[in-house]
């Protein structure tokens, strides 16, 4: 008690963030119960009648259930498969001799990260246009007809994932570059004395060094497996690719805000969150068991 009183200033510093989190993160969590209610704005959250699992069942039986989950899984597993790319890039940058080229390379590789999602998708729409875009023109150069990258269901996940790699691979590699810069140089020297080649050093020094960071990030990613971001997918969606671009978060948005089925939308969202949460705990547990790395 005495210590609390003496440090009252610290609680003052904590207060704004605490209040904001309470109001805008925890109060909505209470609102999640509308997923189990027939919510009507007139009677409010407390006053609306209970509906049990009605809306969950409605979702499980709807034709969008398999479709949205499949699309969400495809896109996130595909993204997950690109997880090693920033690591490879970091290993490569680490091999470059310090100098102007290395700095220039890093500067350029981070650059696309700062392009906003809206501009990024706008860019893709322009450049990928089969008739007037850069890609279309390249195909014409070889006398071929370009595929309609933005208007194709079959190619949607590839376009989504690889444009993401283009935009963020440099930025995502920073954290690994940072980890590599912490390697004790005497380790490399000792390895050289022992006759280790460049590949040996990467294999036995660099990669083990990156593993804890990589695993931590991987766990976080697994926790978000069904949480593929709304922003980019929503912007990339059009009538032509909707079959493979409708994912859980865009569906939640459309059901909820565009057609005002609040309870139904919340139920889908809750289903999504709970699965993510379970995945996160599961993967964390596995990682704890096999590698002694964990988030908590």
């Amino acid at each position, binding site marked *: 008690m005495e210590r609390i009183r003496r440090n009252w200033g610290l609680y003052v*510093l904590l207060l704004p963030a605490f209040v904001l989190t309470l109001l*805008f993160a925890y109060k909505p969590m209470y609102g999640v119960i*509308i997923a189990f209610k027939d919510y009507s704005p007139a009677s409010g959250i407390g006053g609306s009648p209970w509906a049990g699992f009605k809306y969950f069942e409605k979702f499980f039986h709807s034709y969008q259930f398999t479709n949205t989950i499949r699309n969400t899984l495809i896109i996130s597993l595909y993204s997950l498969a690109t997880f090693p790319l920033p690591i490879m890039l970091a290993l490569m940058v680490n091999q470059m001799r310090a100098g102007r080229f290395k700095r220039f390379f890093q*500067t350029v590789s981070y*650059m696309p990260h700062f392009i906003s999602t809206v*501009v990024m998708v706008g860019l893709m729409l322009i450049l990928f246009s089969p008739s007037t875009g850069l890609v279309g023109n390249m195909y014409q150069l070889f006398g071929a007809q370009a595929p309609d990258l933005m208007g194709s269901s079959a190619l949607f996940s590839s376009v989504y994932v690889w444009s993401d790699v283009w935009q963020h691979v440099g930025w995502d590699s920073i*954290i690994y570059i*940072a980890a590599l810069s912490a390697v004790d140089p005497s380790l490399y020297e000792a390895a050289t004395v022992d006759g280790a080649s460049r590949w040996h050093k990467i294999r036995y020094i660099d990669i083990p060094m990156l593993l804890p960071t990589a695993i931590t990030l991987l766990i976080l990613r697994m926790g978000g497996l069904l949480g593929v971001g709304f922003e980019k997918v929503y*912007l990339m969606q059009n009538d032509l690719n909707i079959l493979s671009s409708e994912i859980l978060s865009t569906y939640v948005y459309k059901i909820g805000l565009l057609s005002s089925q609040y309870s139904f939308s919340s139920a889908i969202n809750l289903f999504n969150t709970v699965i993510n*949460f379970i995945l996160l705990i599961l993967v964390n547990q596995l990682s704890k068991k096999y590698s002694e790395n964990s988030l908590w």
Partner: protein
Amino acid sequence: MSVMETAATTRTPRVKRRSRMTVAEGIMYAFAILFLIAIMYPIYFIVIASFSDPSSVANGQVWVFPKGFTLEGYKELLRHENIWIGYRNTILYTVVGTLIGLVVNISAAYALSRKDLVGRKFFSLFFIFTMFFSGGLIPTFLTIRDFHLYNTFLVMVLPFSVVVFDMIVARTFFQTSIPGDLWEAAQIDGCGNLRYFVLVVLPLSKAIIAVLGLWIAVGYWNSYFNALIYLKDPNLYPLQLILRNILITNQMQSGMGTGEAAQVALRLANLMRYSVIIIATIPIMCVYPFIQKYFNQGVMIGAVKE
């Protein structure tokens, strides 16, 4: 910056250092240059296309230099009032939002970094839990509406200003770079926590303030999601939402017009798309090389495990 320049810089170390380049290294640098081209060329193309005659661009005649130089796209932009309203709003949201974000996150992070904070574990968990669990779109929307924040300036800068990840990064910074002895000394001199925070801690924390400030600012500059959901009045729209209307929503309709006038309008609209990308991205691209080292620093701080 051209590709030639890139190639030139790779050669420098070889000449200066006299050491031989191995085959493996040669392959690596070749790959690095290909990577650079893949990143830079699309960006460069947008720049030259924005200065070129739209039909030359559409016919595939623009590759390395602008063709049929024109400023028509930029002139057309000047006439678009919406863009300037969006620009003004975005600057306002970015400045105010960043200030609020800094105050809220940095001060909480400092409190959490102090080992003598009673209830430290509870408060940490309180914040971290929100990283993994949230009410979701609709409950959050209803909350915002209940607080009468829907369609207000405030909704863009206040409700989502707590960023737990940033808070953790700042907390790690305080734990590792502000010596605990300082506080002991200040206490003996009769200095309270608040005075100590403002007069001693903050001046020592310029690096982390810069990093978080820039992270938050870039976030505000680029975001459109909250505006899409919580704003209705076009006079409050940030630039990104206006851009969305120009770049993406109109896209589907633009292919439909016929006749001479429609063709001209379509060409102009295409040209404007290039220029609008440039003017929306330039502010960030201009500051970024100067602040890059702080960004790296920030990520490195974040990488340090507790």
